[in-house]
Each structure stands twice: as C-alpha cells, then as structure tokens.
C-alpha cells in the first residue's frame, strides 16, 4: 500500500502573532512557524502502518519557511520518499492551492491512502483534507484517532471521535483520504543526531507548485488579534469562603440548581 502524508507549517501559537499593517493577513515574516500538530500525528500513523502492514510512505510539503528541517525529521523517522513542492511566495499556500497540487500529484504517484491533519489552525476558507477527497472522488473520513488494517486489502478501519466520548469504528474502502486528529500513539521522538545524519543522506525530489494562485472563496476584510474581554478571577479567602464563592458561581451560571 502506498501512503501519502502532507505536512504543513503553521504559526507557533505559543509565540505572539503579528498582523500585517494592512490588517489583511498575518505578518508571515514575523511569524514563528512549527509543524502542524495533526500533520505530525498523520505522519506517525503512517509510520505505524509501515511497521504493521509494510506500507510505503511518501511525504510531500510545500517549500515554505524552514520546511527542510521537518522533512529531515520525517526522513530520520523512516519515510521512503520525500517530494518538495516549489512555492516561491511570501505566504503559505491556501487550501485550494494545496488541493489542486495534491489532486495532480496523487494519481501520478499511485497512492492508495492519503493521511493528513484534519484541520490546521489557519484553515477557515476551505479545508484541504475533505476537499482533496471530494476532488479525487475518494472516500473520506476525518477527525480520526487511528487507522488499522481490517484483514481485507481494500477496506481499512478508522476510529472517529464523536461528541460525548463516543468513538465510532468506520470501515473505509480504499482509495481514501483520512483526516487525522491524533495518531494511535504520540508522535515518536527522533534524536537530533539521527536528524543530522538524515540531512546528510536524504535526497528530496522537487516538483512545481500550482500554475496560478487561487483566490480564496470569500474576501478577507480584516484580520485582528482577539480582543481581551475578561481576565481570570482569583478566588481568595479560606477554604470555606472559596467553596461558598464557587457554589454561588455555579448557581449563577445555571450549572447547579
């Protein structure tokens, strides 16, 4: 089975975010980038499929920011092939551009299963994973916590979360796109020495990005930092006083009746 994993860099939400002076986007030059967390989990899930079912893993990424470091890390973890998509722009690709590129690439690579994060923190005008599935005409299930073989080569099991701690076992027929929320186990740690070694040895293949930039389906009128409307309230006093304040608060909010 051939598995494709797409990894994306997204703003590091631990760092302060900076909005562009025109208030129409993030200031990407001032923004620290990290690997999208759910893409990291998608990579881990693919590695587990490789270990259990001898899947062959191809990783793709747009050449934006310090993506090489992420790809070296993927190589050190044991992926089989890395394809970098050229992207000479100052902003990362939007969902439509990702979908268009992958929809061209996936059939050419003979991919059976695409694993990618079900959403990224900056996706709001489009969502790449489900929209890629619809474009390819493939099966899709998202917000998934793990994928397993079912004993039949064409059907795989995906575990999807629903509200109220409900987990559904879905049978997914390949070819399919699966939007990963978390992997079956936390992403594995790779020592820096192995990443350095991979950086010395790995060869990236490179392909062209989309022919033209895609306008988002809605006009962005303003981007701004979320206004702070309230701060945390510290409850002070003895244990009894704090307990009384808590009960009053719960009654006020309608949680206790």
């Amino acid at each position, binding site marked *: 089975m051939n598995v494709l994993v797409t990894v994306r860099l997204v703003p590091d939400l631990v760092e302060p975010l900076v909005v562009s002076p025109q208030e129409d986007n993030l200031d990407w030059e001032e923004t620290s980038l990290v690997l999208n967390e759910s893409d990291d989990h998608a990579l881990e899930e693919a590695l587990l499929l490789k270990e259990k079912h001898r899947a062959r893993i191809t990783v793709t990424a747009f050449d934006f920011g310090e993506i090489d470091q992420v790809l070296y890390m993927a190589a050190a973890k044991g992926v089989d092939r890395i394809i970098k998509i050229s992207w000479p722009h100052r902003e990362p690709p939007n969902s439509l551009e990702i979908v268009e590129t992958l929809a061209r690439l996936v059939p050419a690579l003979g991919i059976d299963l695409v694993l990618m994060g079900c959403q990224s923190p900056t*996706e709001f005008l489009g*969502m790449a994973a*489900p929209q890629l599935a619809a474009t390819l005409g493939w099966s*899709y299930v998202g917000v998934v916590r793990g994928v397993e073989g079912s004993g039949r080569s064409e059907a795989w099991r995906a575990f999807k979360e629903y509200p109220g701690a409900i987990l559904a076992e*879905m049978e997914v027929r390949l070819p399919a796109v699966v939007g990963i929320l978390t992997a079956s186990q936390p992403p594995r740690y790779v020592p820096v020495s192995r990443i350095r070694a991979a950086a010395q040895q790995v060869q990236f293949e490179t392909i062209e990005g989309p022919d033209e930039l895609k306008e988002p389906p809605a006009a962005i009128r303003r981007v701004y930092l979320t206004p702070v409307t309230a701060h945390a309230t510290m409850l002070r006093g003895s244990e009894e006083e704090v307990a009384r304040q808590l009960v009053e608060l719960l009654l006020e909010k309608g949680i206790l009746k």
Partner: protein
Amino acid sequence: MSRRIAVPVEAYQGKITDLTRECLIAARLLAGDQDEVVAYMFGEIPAEGNSVLQLADRIITFEDGQVGQPVALAQAKLLCSKLDRAELDLVLVGSSSWGLDLGPLMAAYWGVPLVANCQWLERRENSLWATCRICAGKLMVDVEVEARPAVVLLLPGSFLRKEVAPRNRQPVIERETVARRNGTIGSVSSGGLSRSEKMWTSPRRRFWWP
C-alpha cells in the same frame, strides 16, 4: 424572493445536539420572517426534538435508517443530490466532528465557498459577513461572502445565548424515503458507536446510495 437556509440536523441516541440548536437559532435570526429555514433530519425525529426543530419552517426527514448513522460522506452525497443548489442561500453546519466532515464535503461537491470556524454571521445588503476565530482563538478574521450558496461551519457557543421570538406556526414536516441501488453509498460505513475505547461488536452495516 425568499431565500432558503438549510440546517442539517445532528442527533445522537435520540437527542438533537445543542450545536444544531445554535445553528437553527443563527438561521432563524438571519432568515427573519422573509426567508425560509429548512432542517434536514437523517432518520426519525426524536421525541425530544420537536422543541428544537420548531425553529425551522420546514423539516425534511430522510426516512431510510441506513443514513441515520452519522456517516458524513454518505449524508453529504445525499444532501448534494436532494437539495436544489439554486434555491439555497446558505448551509449552516455545526463545527463538530461530524460537521467538520459534512460541511467541507458538501462545499467541495458543489464547488461553493466554505467558511469554517465561524462565530458570528450577519447580512449586510446582499453580502454575508462572517467573523471567524482561528489560530486557537488568538486571531479573528472578518470575511465577506458574495457567492451563493455558501457552506458555513459554526463554532459551538456562538449563538448559545441568543434569543429568538417564539413562532406561531408549526413547521411543515416532509418525509423522503431514500431509494436504494446496488453498491455502497460512498464506501465509508459505520460499525456503530460506543462509549470510550470499547468497540462496537455488531456486524457492520452498509449504506446505500440512491
């Protein structure tokens, strides 16, 4: 001409979710008295669902139990085949694990705009304005959507405390039976739902596509 706002209903174990109620409140506020709110229910209307669904002008139920399971791929294909896109202004879907599959699939099948992470919606003349919360809530974005219909994923809590005036008339209920054909509805099926880590053990069901 009146516009139509569609709200696919999410229900589990005989209970319509609070997020669906919020979507219906948002739809009602946008629709006012002029436009029509249509709720699309997969399976039978739960006994406790009447008060929530009264926010709609019409309720259309798909009576085939096989689409009653929350398999978004099948339901997205069903809705895209049944709904007349030309009559629609907006599809409002809750941003739940189900809605995060259903909304983007519908937008992609139809090739219409998708606005996710929406926490506020309003009409300004012919445009729809949405405020989206991204980057784990650290950033807000105001967007203007001109193309119609649009699919909007509403964040939980956005319209929770909004009041809607009580309606005098009962919604019209229409029942549609989903015809079957040979083959699966979309090649994703559900083995069932279970609490926590314990897996459902009943035989898997197939979903059929009309």
